[in-house]
């Protein structure tokens, strides 16, 4: 090899275009070239997750979206009573009901009855949510409507004197709105009035706000109990030799593996007033035989059972964080002069916060929407907001109110998530 055969190439550096952006060897911009090169792998990655994406869209995202829409949209009235809806839109809700309105009501009821006998009842049910007595009013009016002749207002008054009460007309105006804040208002114990303003529900019907507060408090309590009970267990788990740690881990996970009914039965056997726990209390003299604690079918039962079920969700993230803390950190703290407590509190504990945060958030969010456990062991006053959502879905069939309650719950969770991100930082979270 001669010297001439090897010469450093000084003429060709990296190519750039007029704006100074780098060009690839064939003259296309480097960024574009890179995108092309990565496109194939990106497409493959997308295809891999596509089935799951579709499944989630179809079974989760779209239903939730529809539910949220349901909370503000109700076309029961406007679709069955189109004439009345358009006439009521003109009405200022303070003046006397007009002949035109009455005619529209009669026409709509006759038409609705022709399509299906159940339609007028549906309308009655809808109006009844705003003012009671509407179901019977609509039934009666529908029966007499075919024989009515003008003037319809007088005929209506003759058919049922409730029509003289402006409250029913106002209720119809509220019900006629397709997009309505009425359900969200109801979900926070407000009443949506015909003139567009809001008023408090009567005292005896204000239940949801206090229920939301109760749900949040119970969830917070359960979370706190889980931290207090779970932290020492996680600490023990992470410091045991792996054989014993595995055994203990199985015990921690046991609640996941037992059937819900078996668990519930076990709680009843343990907690009821003639149960094991109360027998022991009586036997060691904490309480007397005629003053046994009621530990189940009330709030106490709900909290005990929920803590039990949600405990693993707290232990696992804390455990995984503790596993990753090098033992040399605590040793370093001690060698620097810290007592056992100082070393724990100032060096070990801060390192576990991501785990506590993750576990706390997980437990809280699960608890806030918990349904089965309160339904089974909560009795009368151990019910949470989700039990009322379920009630409106299954019993009262007021899906829009259920959707509104669910929507508020969702917003609460999102706010919490946002708060957590602000305070702890979501990228600090370690789930395992």
């Amino acid at each position: 090899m001669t010297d001439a055969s090897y010469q450093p190439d000084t003429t060709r550096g990296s190519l750039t275009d007029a704006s100074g952006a780098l060009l690839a060897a064939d003259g296309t911009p480097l960024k574009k070239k890179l995108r092309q090169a990565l496109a194939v792998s990106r497409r493959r990655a997308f295809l891999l997750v596509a089935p799951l994406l579709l499944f989630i869209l179809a079974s989760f995202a779209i239903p939730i979206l529809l539910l949220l829409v349901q909370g503000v949209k109700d076309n029961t009235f406007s679709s069955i009573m189109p004439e009345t809806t358009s006439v009521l839109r003109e009405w200022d809700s303070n003046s006397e009901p007009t002949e035109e309105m009455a005619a529209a009501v009669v026409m709509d009821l006759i038409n609705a009855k022709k399509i299906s006998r159940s339609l007028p009842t549906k309308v009655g049910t809808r109006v009844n949510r705003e003012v009671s007595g509407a179901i019977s009013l609509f039934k009666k009016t529908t029966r007499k409507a075919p024989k009515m002749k003008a003037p319809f207002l007088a005929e209506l008054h003759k058919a049922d004197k409730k029509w003289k009460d402006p409250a029913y007309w106002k209720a119809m105006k509220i019900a006629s709105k397709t997009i309505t804040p009425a359900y969200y208002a109801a979900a926070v114990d407000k009443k949506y009035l015909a003139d567009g303003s809001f008023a408090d529900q009567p005292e005896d019907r204000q239940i949801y706000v206090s229920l939301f507060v109760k749900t949040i408090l119970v969830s917070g309590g359960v979370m706190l109990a889980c931290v207090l009970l779970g932290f020492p267990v996680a600490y023990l788990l992470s410091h045991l030799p792996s054989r014993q740690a595995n055994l203990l881990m199985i015990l921690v996970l046991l609640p996941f593996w037992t059937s819900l009914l078996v668990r519930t039965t076990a709680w009843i056997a343990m907690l009821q007033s003639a149960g094991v726990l109360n027998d022991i209390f009586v036997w060691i003299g904490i309480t007397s035989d005629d003053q046994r604690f009621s530990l189940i079918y009330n709030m106490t039962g709900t909290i005990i059972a929920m803590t039990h079920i949600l405990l693993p969700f707290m232990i696992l993230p804390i455990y995984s964080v503790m596993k990753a803390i090098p033992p040399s950190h605590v040793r370093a703290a001690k060698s620097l002069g810290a007592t056992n407590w100082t070393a724990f509190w100032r060096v070990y504990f801060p390192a576990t916060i991501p785990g506590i945060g993750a576990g706390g958030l997980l437990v809280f969010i699960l608890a806030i929407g918990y349904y089965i456990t309160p339904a089974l062991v909560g009795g009368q006053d151990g019910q949470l907001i989700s039990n009322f959502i379920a009630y409106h879905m299954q019993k009262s069939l007021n899906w829009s109110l259920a959707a509104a309650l669910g929507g508020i719950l969702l917003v609460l969770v999102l706010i919490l998530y946002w708060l957590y991100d602000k305070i702890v930082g979501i990228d600090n979270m370690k789930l395992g």
Partner: protein
Amino acid sequence: MAGTDGSDEFVVFDQVQKSYDGETLVVKNLNLSIAQGEFLTMLGPSGSGKTTCLMMLAGFETSTHGEIRLAGKPINNIPPHKRGIGMVFQNYALFPHMTVAENLAFPLQVRKMSKAVTRDKVSKALDMVQMGEFGDRRPSQLSGGQQQRVALARALVFEPQLVLMDEPLGALDKQLREHMQYEIKHIHERLGVTVVYVTHDQSEALTMSDRIAVFDDGVIQQLAPPAVLYEKPENAFVASFIGENNKLRANIDSVSNGVASVTIDSGDKVQALAVNCGDTGNTMLSIRPERVLLSADAPNRLDGKVLELIYLGDHIRCRMAVAGHDEFIVKVPNSSDHAALNVGESCPIGWVTEDCRALDAA
């Protein structure tokens, strides 16, 4: 050397034994005195008990038997946080949720020093390791070498009399490691603290230490300054662990005036310095590759045959067959007058009697 200033017994291990399972001793009857201001390195392969010794001194392990004294006082029953011993860990063990300055302030805060004093000492300690501008950074924002400096500053900031270092440079790359060795050595010289340093890297030990304790199998094999350890190993383990060594089995014929006349397995008769070999029986001859002479008129002549030559710039490494032994290494300096060696050729070798040591036949 700092070890001669009178306070020869700053740290004392007195017949210390340690067992984890009650069946085997990890540390066997350790007796060791460390002088104030000394830089002592515990060197040995993994599992030799050196780290256990360090942990017993720090207070994280308790000795099964024996006493450890610090400045004359037994410390067996003193918890680690009251010993006032600084420690640098293998992976730095900086607290990730504190800034560099907070890490350094930690030992001062637990000692309830005032804020002004703390700030002053922290900035001085950071300046000492040339990290003055990094006080507000988190440990995760620093490179390995910088973290090491911070860990060092943290172990020194509360002015301990004794600093322990557990393979502190193990995670650094070669160049940085060598640089940090000098830095640690200079800090030690400047502050005059006593340092007990654990490593399995012999060049690290040779570079930094006043004295090196070579550990194997729970026993100190030799305790000596670096030069003595290299030049005058006392047994076969030390000879082979520190630096490179050629070993030849031999049988002792006679010993007179500290010189052993021996017969090598091949039948050749040579002489070596009698160090640790008794008067009869087997011995292990040990000679450094750079002390082998390639010359026909050298004393203790043997016949060798060149098997392999490796060019290493400043010297040429020559593998030879000598006395039936195929791994005999000779380092030939790359000087203008070195004999031109060729693979396959025979070449006489020899050594000065003082350079070859007759050791125990391990």
